[in-house]
């Protein structure tokens, strides 16, 4: 009776309540803001203290770089910080998640729109794009989408195979990958193995003082019949939690619905990947658009390393011990022979 979380990207508004709820429930603390420069996302990626991050994506065109990378230019074009914050917020709200909002906006002249705050902001954003990029066609304006990124709780989890001390194990009954922090050595082999780049090491790990961390699917909550904190907090119900079979069904229904609405590449990610993930994601388009591997796999080197090199190593050490043991006994026998001959 495995459970699963269903993330419906087509419903997510990018509010990041799930991030906050996760931090509050798990008491993971905050990251140093200096390490996370300004951008739409709260964090560029997951961190030791941040087990889920709402990633921002665009469907159609890859123009998000303009927002993140042209920050300085963006700042120069805006009069005050207040205007900048307001504009960014409104731009975010106006463009996602429904595709094509801006395309249908009838942009007038600056003077006509000045009285209408929202439309004026849209005009400013559009003007910014037109001035600073080569965007001329309104259809190329990006459409924002958000994906909650965190542990996928794979059935065939690469992290479990990589862990040398079984600090990572799978609870097959409930369907999640648990992390035993006290056993973890902080070697980081799981970090290298995970195809989703999920486990993160504490900063002291390089000197042997840090451990790894990742989402535990709020195992303490689900064992007491409560939903994970992120699911509990999601305002538009973009996150659902329940029996995996039911979540798959729910996800498939959403895919059918999206396909009917014109999202031809809509796909339920995690139904079959890596033996089935316990975090399913309703994707309006291809996985690569959302920074997900098309065909995630347990890295091949794990087999070479764990099933060939390590057993051969144990065999070599045991063989050496055996040979030396033989030599020791043989020496004793040879010595007693010498003694007899004298």
């Amino acid at each position, binding site marked *: 009776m495995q459970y699963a979380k269903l993330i419906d990207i087509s419903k997510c508004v990018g509010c990041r309540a799930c991030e906050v709820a996760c931090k509050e429930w798990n008491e993971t603390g905050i990251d140093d803001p200096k390490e996370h420069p300004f951008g739409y996302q709260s964090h560029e990626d997951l961190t030791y203290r941040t087990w889920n991050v709402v990633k921002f994506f665009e469907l159609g065109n890859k123009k998000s770089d303009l927002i993140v990378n042209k920050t300085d230019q963006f700042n120069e074009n805006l009069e005050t910080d207040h205007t900048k914050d307001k504009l960014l917020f409104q731009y975010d709200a106006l463009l996602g998640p429904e595709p094509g909002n801006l395309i249908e906006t009838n942009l007038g002249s600056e003077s006509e729109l000045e009285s209408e705050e929202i439309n004026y902001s849209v005009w400013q954003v559009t003007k910014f794009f037109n001035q600073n990029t080569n965007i001329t066609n309104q259809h190329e304006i990006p459409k924002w989408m958000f994906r909650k990124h965190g542990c996928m709780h794979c059935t065939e989890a690469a992290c479990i195979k990589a862990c040398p*001390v079984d600090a990572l194990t799978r609870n097959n009954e409930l369907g999640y990958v648990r992390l035993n922090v006290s056993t973890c*050595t902080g070697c980081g*082999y799981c970090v290298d193995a995970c195809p989703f780049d999920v486990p993160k090491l504490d900063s002291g790990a390089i000197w*042997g003082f840090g451990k790894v961390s990742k989402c535990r699917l709020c195992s303490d909550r689900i064992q007491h019949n409560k939903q994970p904190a992120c699911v509990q907090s999601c305002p538009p119900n973009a996150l659902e939690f329940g029996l995996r079979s039911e979540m798959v069904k729910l996800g498939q229904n959403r895919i059918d619905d999206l396909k009917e609405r014109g999202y031809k590449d809509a796909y339920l990610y995690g139904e079959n990947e890596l033996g089935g993930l316990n975090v399913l994601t309703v994707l309006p388009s291809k996985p690569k658009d959302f920074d997900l591997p098309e065909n995630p796999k347990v890295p091949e080197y794990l087999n070479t390393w764990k099933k060939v*090199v390590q057993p051969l*190593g144990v065999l070599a*050490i045991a063989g*050496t011990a055996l040979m030396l043991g033989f030599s*020791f006994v043989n020496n004793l026998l040879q010595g007693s022979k010498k003694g007899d001959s004298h």
Partner: protein
Amino acid sequence: MDEDTNNNSLIIVPKRVERIKLHERISHAVNALGFLLAAGTGLVLFYKGLKKLSGGTRSRQLHRVGAALMISAPFFVWGKDWQGWKKTWREITYFSKEDREFLKRAPMYMLGFPVKMPPQGKFNAGQKMNFLMVTFNSAGFVLTGGLLMLRRHLPEKAFPYLIIAHDIQAIVGICGFMAHAYLALLHPDTRPSFRAVIDGTVPVEYALGHHALWSESQKHKLD
């Protein structure tokens, strides 16, 4: 000292002869301690049967201490006597006809069969091989271990090669160490040499038997 009074003359024959100098012994001890620490804690990450000994991050911290000791070991020799090290290195890397013959007979000798070994210099061919293995393996450990520590700054593809290379080096090092320790502690022929790593001396009979060419070259010191 024994006093030989034959032929009415007094000849003082030492029972033991110095073979390893103090700074070399310190270097050897630091390297051995470092290797034991690094190998012991490394095996915890290598063989799942030892997982209960990991002690969380403690094993990785000790692994680094072991590595630091191993890295520091050669500096005791290089710092004290650089010229002596160069001479030793020349000696170690030269394999004479006797050395090659020694290596041919070494497997049977290692297995405990009575084999007459050819006369050897200060270092026999087996010791030379061990010295070279330790030197190159240690250099490999520093390279792969250091890069593993810095792997977050390297391409993802580097990790499998580094970890597998580090493991293979560890296997070679551990097997070599086992044979080395066996010869020093348990093998009846070579066991008398063990005190050399403590007080630097070996019995004269041992030196004459196992390092005949070197003993010959040391005779002038007794004249």
